[in-house]
């Protein structure tokens, strides 16, 4: 009895297949307009500021449309990578300078901006660009802002523990004075740091002791077991003197120490943060409540290990169909006065001196962000070598610190384990 119904069903199948083929891409009709795609991540301020700059550009360049593809941070990198793999990456992209090495090393994906005479990079410090935005001598990205890291202390907690506000915060003083904070109240701790932050700080300590961390090119570990043991022993004093919360408590807020209710309730003396996070740290409290201090540096250290780097970089896709138009926009974005005023410090203190001057003239530089940046730059360390930012290398340190913090490894054992795992991973990569 299938009879006639059979044809009906076959018709449905045919229609589905037809739908498939016709559902395919509505290709852009060849239009007079050039369209550029520009992607970035950020928060509301950054979206609004960047859109304003794009608007201004479109008004003065009527043949060009810029498709803004913006979103939050979650998934941005994965999406970018997927797009690159599928050949559909945007023309202009915001990236972290740390990704440049991974992405550029794998094929000719980014335009060499150093070669472009239509891009004015004179406002940027040459060394800054050649260190952080170039790979093998090719300038691959334009730095947006200057990012750094520093310590931020909360005056009320220091005051009530009797710590003078003009203390010089050295590695020793943090322990000596910090113990007072916890003694004053068992709810309070000197430093709000969990595994990730401890890893950052320990790495600096090691670099300050030994002058280096790893040599990516020659696949060598640059510090000795002794150096590492000293570093771990130092941080053991943090746990022993209750400078930090036990890992089992703080690990819930690893990577987001600002979300720790104890921080919001004012139970911590300080934390380590990137300059871009300054405003989040204050979280509505007056700027006066905070002391901005450099991460401590050991006397006689050659390299402080403190990172100062581009907040982000803007790159141009070498597979784009409109490279000239893209470069023109990038040039405008970084050098045009109106664009600079529209974007202000949404990506940190501008890396371009041209931009900084314009903002200063117009009173638009956020004082706290500016101060944080200069504090960080004052103790700037040597640039991280390649592979130091490699995700697998980074997680080795995190894992070892975690095991150390949970008491599974002694300081000496932790040092040995760290070196062993680093060496083995370096030989693999």
């Amino acid at each position, binding site marked *: 009895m*299938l009879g006639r119904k059979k044809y009906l069903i076959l018709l449905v*199948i045919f229609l589905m297949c037809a739908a498939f083929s016709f559902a395919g891409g509505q290709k852009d009709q060849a239009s007079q307009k050039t369209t550029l795609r520009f992607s970035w991540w950020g928060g509301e301020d950054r979206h609004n500021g960047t859109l304003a700059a794009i608007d201004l550009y479109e008004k003065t360049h009527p043949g060009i449309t810029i498709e803004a593809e913006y979103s939050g941070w979650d998934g941005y990198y994965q999406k970018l*990578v997927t797009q690159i793999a599928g050949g559909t990456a945007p023309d202009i992209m915001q990236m972290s300078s740390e990704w440049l090495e991974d992405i550029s090393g*794998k094929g000719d994906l980014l335009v060499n901006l150093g070669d472009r005479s239509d891009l004015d990079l004179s406002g940027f410090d040459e060394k800054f660009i050649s260190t952080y935005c170039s790979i093998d001598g090719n300038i691959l990205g334009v730095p947006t802002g200057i990012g750094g890291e520093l310590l931020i202390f909360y005056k009320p907690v220091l005051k009530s523990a009797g710590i003078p506000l003009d203390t010089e915060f050295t590695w020793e003083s943090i322990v000596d004075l910090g113990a007072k904070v916890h003694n004053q109240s068992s709810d309070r701790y000197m430093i709000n740091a969990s595994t990730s932050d401890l890893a950052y700080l320990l790495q600096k300590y090691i670099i300050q002791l030994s002058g280096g961390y790893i040599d990516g090119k020659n696949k060598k570990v640059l510090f000795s077991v002794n150096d590492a043991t000293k570093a771990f022993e130092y941080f053991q004093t943090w746990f022993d003197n209750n400078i930090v919360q036990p890992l089992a408590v703080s*690990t819930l807020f*690893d990577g987001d120490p600002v979300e720790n*209710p104890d921080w919001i309730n004012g139970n911590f003396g300080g934390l380590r943060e990137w300059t871009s996070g300054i405003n989040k740290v204050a979280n509505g409290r007056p700027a006066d409540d905070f002391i901005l201090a450099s991460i401590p540096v050991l006397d006689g250290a050659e390299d402080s290990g403190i990172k100062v780097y581009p907040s982000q970089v803007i790159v141009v896709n070498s597979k784009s169909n409109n490279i000239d138009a893209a470069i023109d926009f990038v040039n405008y974005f970084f050098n045009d006065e109106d664009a600079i005023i529209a974007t202000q410090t949404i990506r940190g203190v501008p890396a371009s001196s041209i931009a900084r001057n314009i903002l200063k003239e117009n009173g638009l530089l956020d004082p706290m962000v500016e101060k944080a940046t200069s504090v960080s730059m004052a103790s700037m360390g040597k640039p991280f070598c390649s592979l130091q930012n490699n995700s697998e290398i980074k997680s080795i340190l995190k894992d070892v610190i*975690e095991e150390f913090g949970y008491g599974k490894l002694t300081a000496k054992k932790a040092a040995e384990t760290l070196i062993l795992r680093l060496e083995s991973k370096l030989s693999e990569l």
Partner: protein
Amino acid sequence: MKNIMKIHDFDKAGLIYISPWIIGFLLLQLYPLLATFFYSFTDFNLFTNPKMVGLNNFKKIFTQDPDFWNSMMVTFKYVLLAVPLKLTFALLIAIILNTKTKGINFFRTIFYFPSIIGGSVAISILWRFLFMRKGIINNVLAIINIPPTDWLGDPKIALFTVSLLSVWQFGSSMVLFLAGLKQIPSTLIEASRIDGAGSFRIFFSVTIPMITPIIFFNLVMQTINAFQNFTGAFVITQGGPMKATYLYGIMLYNQGFQNFKMGYASALSWILFLIILTFTLILFRSSESWVHYDD
């Protein structure tokens, strides 16, 4: 003769009914499947073309990757913990809700909320509140003098806490059980009652057997899902502390999208595939003895 011919024709129609799936499979699913299989024998960093490396990935996984064995164990523990708990809860609640209960619509909707909210940002924040050392759970337990536990910070307990998140979302399994219970013809129940069977007897001899197809479905689906699941742990613990909640799915995601070893990740995923397939085949085989179909 005519009857047999009719039936033969009739059964062939089945192929036409499943033709949408066949088309979909050939056009949309076959290529990705084969591609990932191919990738598992390559070094593929997503930016350049894959490079053949033969069985290297698999060799490394089994002999040089401590994370692999750890994640295997963590995931197995998770599956054995979360799936039975979740299904038991779902079935019990469904049975309770299937009786004449005042406000049953209201309860049903509320029990389903966790599944509706899903993996939202709110959940991860709230979960931290509940389970941090000074969190609500510890505060409640303090009332009966139980000392505070680090539900998410203690490597020995963290996995259990993460499983709770999955169990808490039992709503979808519950909905399916309810649907199955509702599909039982009331005439069957009435007939048994007329025959003199009591409620207990009816429950075990009629109701349960009639919903075994759904029990089976939930069992298979929840198991498959539990093996691959990772968003909860990823957001709340990032696989920590000390990889105590480093589910296979997290390891896979990190290898693929963080370390850019798509070839390696593909190999990992096909190993997982084989494990899940084995489990599922065992479940299917066992179903022949306890699942009751009316055909």
